[in-house]
């Protein structure tokens, strides 16, 4: 429960960002009368939005040495994502930051650390920095890490913390949708309603559409999922999740999935679906060997 007063100037910006309306977040970032703290948060959000849009170089070049610590952390994320070949050096400088007691506790650094270690699939290291929470972002990240670890019990605990802080927060709602999807069963419907609420309240984004579509798929309604995904494709023809989910959907409705798959392979060769597919092929060949 939260009892707060005073307008929340960054509300819209944050919402845009969480719901995947990255360009809208960037476009609407000029907000008057911000406190110093808000300005740093605003800049972080804007740069994270640029990262989400894939404009890593822009972020790297815009954030200079003089920028605030959280922004430096955001820059690290951009560097990590932009050049996987140099990730060792990025991670080591991240670790330096984390070891520094003056800045190591900063929520944004911890968030970025969690994100990067999650990419590294080193959940232990990720949680080391994120588990204590502190911001809604960190809690939401924790929920996701636990879901990835297939520990929905832990994820649920995190979610409960979020609900106690602010049940109606966009991230709380999103995180509970994630968890609902992960635990499945009747909860899928609740997840659907959450995405439905978002779609009524805010402009449609491909993130919301994908969320709805995933729910539909899990409810066995692949036709509707396909419609939603095609709508998402209209919004963003290169969105990797849209393409990946379209591949899955097409398979289920008995249509050809190869075009979406190829598009995904072209634009996002590192996508989980592509990776999983390749490893599965490998796996198949290996299994075949045992029969030869």
């Amino acid at each position: 429960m939260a009892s707060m007063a005073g307008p929340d100037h960054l509300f819209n910006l944050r919402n845009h960002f969480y719901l995947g309306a990255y360009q809208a977040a960037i476009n609407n970032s000029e907000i008057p009368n911000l406190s110093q703290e808000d300005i740093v948060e605003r800049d972080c959000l804007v740069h994270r939005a640029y990262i989400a849009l894939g404009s890593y170089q822009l972020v790297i070049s815009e954030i200079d040495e003089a920028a605030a610590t959280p922004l430096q952390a955001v820059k690290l994320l951009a560097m990590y994502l932009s050049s996987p070949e140099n990730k060792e050096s990025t991670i080591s400088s991240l670790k330096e930051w984390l070891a520094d007691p003056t800045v190591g506790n900063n929520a944004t650094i911890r968030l970025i650390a969690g994100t990067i270690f999650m990419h590294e699939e080193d959940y232990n290291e990720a949680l080391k920095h994120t588990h204590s929470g502190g911001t809604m972002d960190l809690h939401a990240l924790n929920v996701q890490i636990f879901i990835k670890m297939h520990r929905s019990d832990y994820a649920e605990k995190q979610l409960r913390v979020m609900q106690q802080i602010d049940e109606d927060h966009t991230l709380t709602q999103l995180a509970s949708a994630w968890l609902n999807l992960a635990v499945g069963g009747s909860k899928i419907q609740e997840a659907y309603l959450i995405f439905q609420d978002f779609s009524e309240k805010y402009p449609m984004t491909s993130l919301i559409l994908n969320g709805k579509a995933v729910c539909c798929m899990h409810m066995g309604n692949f036709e509707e999922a396909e419609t939603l995904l095609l709508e998402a494709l209209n919004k963003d023809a290169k969105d990797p999740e849209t393409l990946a989910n379209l591949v899955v959907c097409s398979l289920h409705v008995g249509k050809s999935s190869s075009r979406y798959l190829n598009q995904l392979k072209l634009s996002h060769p590192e996508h989980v679906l592509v990776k999983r597919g390749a490893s599965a092929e490998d796996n198949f060949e290996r299994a075949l060997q045992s029969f030869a």
Partner: protein
Amino acid sequence: MLTKFETKSNRVKGLSFHPKRPWILASLHSGVIQLWDYRMGTLIDRFDEHEGPVRGVHFHSSQPLFVSGGDDYKIKVWNYKTHRCLFTLLGHLDYIRTVQFHHEYPWIVSASDDQTIRIWNWQSRTCVSVLTGHNHYVMCASFHPKEDLVVSASLDQTVRVWDIGALRKKTVSPADDIMRLTQMNSDLFGGVDAIVKYVLEGHDRGVNWAAFHPNLPLIVSGADDRQVKLWRMNETKAWEVDTLRGHMNNVSSVMFHAKQDIIVSNSEDKSIRVWDATKRTGLQTFRREHDRFWILAVHPEMNLLAAGHDSGMIVFKLERERPAFALSGDSLFYAKDRFLRYYEYSTQRDSQVIPIRRPGTPSLNQSPRTLSYSPTENAVLICSDVDGGSYELYIIPKDSVGRSDVVQDAKRGTGGSAVFIARNRFAVLEKSTSQVLVKNLKNEVVKKSSLPIPTDAIFYAGTGNLLCRSEDKVVIFDLQQRLVLGELQTPPFVRYVVWSSDMESVALLSKHTIIIASKKLVLQCTLHETIRVKSGAWDDNGVFIYTTLNHIKYCLPNGDSGIIQTLDVPIYITKVSGNTIFCLDRDGKNKAITINATEYIFKLALLRKRYDHVMSMIKNSQLCGQAMIAYLQQKGFPEVALHFVEDERIRFNLALESGNISVAVASATQINEKDHWYRLGVEALRQGNSGIVEFAYQQTKNFERLSFLYLITGNLDKLSKLMKIAEVKNNVMGQFHNALYLGDVKERVKILENAGHLPLAYITASVHGLNDIAERLATELGDNVPSLPEGKTPSLLMPPTPVMCGGDWPLLRVMKGIFEGGLESADRGGTVDEEDGEGDWGEELDINVDGMENRDIEDILAAAEAGEEENDEDGGWGGLEDLELPPELDTPKASANARSSVFVTPTQGMPISQIWSQKSSLAAEQAAAGSFDTAMRLLHRQLGIKNFTPLKSMFLDLFNGSHSYLRAFSSSPVVPLAIERGWSESSSPNVRGPPALVYDFSQLDEKLKSGYKATTSGKFTEALRLFLSILHTIPLVVVETRREVDEVKELVTIVKEYVLGLQMELKRREMKDDPLRQQELAAYFTHCNLQTPHLRLALLSAMGVCYKAKNLATASNFARRLLESNPVENQAKMARQVVQAAERNMTDATKLNYDFRNPFVICGSTYVPIYRGQKDVSCPYCTARFVPSQEGNICTVCDLAVIGADASGLLCSPAQVR
């Protein structure tokens, strides 16, 4: 108490409601009787003929009459239409306290201080009975509403009930009045027409009032002992039931409420009290500061009461009658009596949903005030005034057909108002702290937020937003952003908030005002009503339709309003749909009213400048009337109004206003009045249309103006003509003017001379040098020749040459009337359509372009794929751990971080795919789980499959289709989620179902059909591909029931036959040079188990092949089989010919390895018959048969299994495992 109307006057002693109209009579201590319209709040009439106070007054129930009785001992009967006292009934000997008409008979009952009650016949204008028995002033007397009874109250401390049955019988029987008149005297003391039935004793002081219950045998009385007593009676006796104590002074008047189970009393203690008639407890008390109450009246039909006091009277209601309702799409939820009900607009079906009150609970002012509904959760919030404002939350059960009468335990809470703000959130107002609590459906507080203004009510304002009302202001507040989105000053107390369906506009309704604002509360218009505003709803066009007490009205977006129709009783609009208004009445009944929307639709079209629409409405001329014309004129559309008008004068005015000269001329010709011509001339002059100006002046014979016109237009011919006319008419002045304008000096001199102004004529002539004329005039003048001024050089006064001679002024811009515009745009309708068509074409072009792009992409992709395939060998992603590694391997390292000293990273849970893999013995599910080796092992064991290469793509598809991908937190890795099969709403969470599979049985059915189709049309390669793919998919299909398992197995054999047959047929086509083998294969083909049409085709082809090869006997066998299969005519004909040919020569030219008499199966790889009794081996999967030598090879039919291998059989359903 809801005060509806109040008057200030002398003390009010008598009151009576009109049964139908909104009128009330008030008789005053000053002797005046007032007739008020309490709805409009106006004094309609006053009747001032009594001397001294008038204590009793009563309307007749059907005639335009009322009766009054006063301290002048007179009873007067009045006709309020003619404003006349019709007659006066004399007889009472003291003040008259009350008078009342009988509801049926032409009687009046009166009570008087002379201790009698009299009954009068107002038709014969006589007293028909005198009821004696009271021994003090009779304070009140009234008829029973149904029975032949009268109740009276007296200061003798008794209430008496009189039986007037005998009197009625006398009236009904045709006894004449004269007889009764004579009888009357004998009746006067101890008559038999009316006898005392009961004497009710119990009051300790004088009784001021007694009244019957409208339908129960009950009487209520009020007395100077400050008590209200309730009495009951039966056929034989009457007794006191209870006493209601509470009044602090003499009780003046007391009555039963007409509709509710309550008693209302008033008293000289300056209070009105409301009592529960069943429980006999006080419910409410309303006090006045200084005024003692003297009289009460109950409306016979409506929920209205009136009370008279020392300085006037009040008309009031005890509680609101507006049913609480909430609209949701096509349905309306509303509260009626103690139930929540549901109404569906499209079907007009009305049904009960759930009970919300237990029967018998007190209802006065406890009924729901507002209702809020959440469609997704099917939850209803009901707010009422109970406990100073509280709410109840009900979840409507899904299967509620509504017959059950069990009141569910609602979740309750206190709060000023409560309203849903999101699917599963509602806001509750805490008035004292001006905070809202946001709660979830469990009634738990989720969030608290303080409001920006001191708020006394909250309303919905879109998801997550609240409209907060204070006394003179409303704001829209975003609860999440804690931001004020809009703010608006309003007249006191906005009562209702009505949003348009697109949530773009809002109507704020207060008592006498309607404010229309945008969603950000930007004021659009304000509308004031003299009569109370009751309800409203938005129609589909953005017009706000609302009701006042007595009208349905509309309000256009610009604030223009008008009446649609009048109302007899107030209604509450719930929805407007086209021409239909849906509303609730005061009894909580749903009604649909069809209205004539033409007027406001027309005005709306004008407002929106939809002139084509306007045009079509004008053409269909559905509307007319002065009001509309005035409206059009006022709104600056005189040219539109012009088209409505027949009356020439109005047409003329409108034409002038819109500058339409030609219409004006036509009208002026019709009217032909000087004034109109004049005005036409003025307008024509303004427009420079000199032709019309001239015409107008000519019509009015306005020569001065004409000549001036000719002067300035330089039309000298006409000017001189005009001069002639003036001469003829003997108009000297006009003639002179014209001459002056023309510069015709001679003429001027002549005129002056003729007019006798010889000196002037002389001067004119001499000045202008007309010397001969001057001399002639001088002689005539003789001595009187005036002297000419000297030293001046005279010049001839000549009019200047006009700049432009004649003709109309060129108008810079022809004002295109909107009306013509309308016409044009109406015409343009067609072209617009065409443009639309072009648009479509354009789009199609775009699509083409897209298509090309896609193709390009495809090319690129294909290239990329090729590239990837090349790279395939050195692929080898390390990503398998995720799937394959058992959890133990991933045990976390102990955390050594200082920050997380107490935190231990949990061990990773088991991926769902692993659960699948552990649980399942179905190959398809194993494949979906990614356990390809297990899947292969299963298939090998079950079906003897060894060649998995054809299954590769299916394995991969199953695996790919088993997970969806959720983008969770921005820039973090995507979350793959396992999709489970057989989801239902009631599936419990955290219980893992089997994986969703991309292949299902119904797809195979489809494939089978297209396989058949391809076969029929002879596309054998295609057909073979389809059938084979069925055969390859079946091992990976999962069905749910045993029956389906059988169907799957059946499908295998069906498809196998086709595959074998088609393979042979294709083989046959390859062997052009081996006719013998060709015949054999064609023959074998006919022994595959095919669908009849396919069999016919096979037979036909075999017959043809054999016939050509002169194997007539064999061919005729095929022909006979073909005929047996009941073929189409041309096939049959051919077959018969073959049979005939064969009969003549029943031989075979060549010997085939084919004996149709001997049953056989065909070897699937060598295509030779295996006759019954010969040894064979079969494929464990597809059951194709083979000659023994093939054992150990891969089956050539299905290309999967090893011929003759051991296998446990197809396992394709969990039902088989259970």
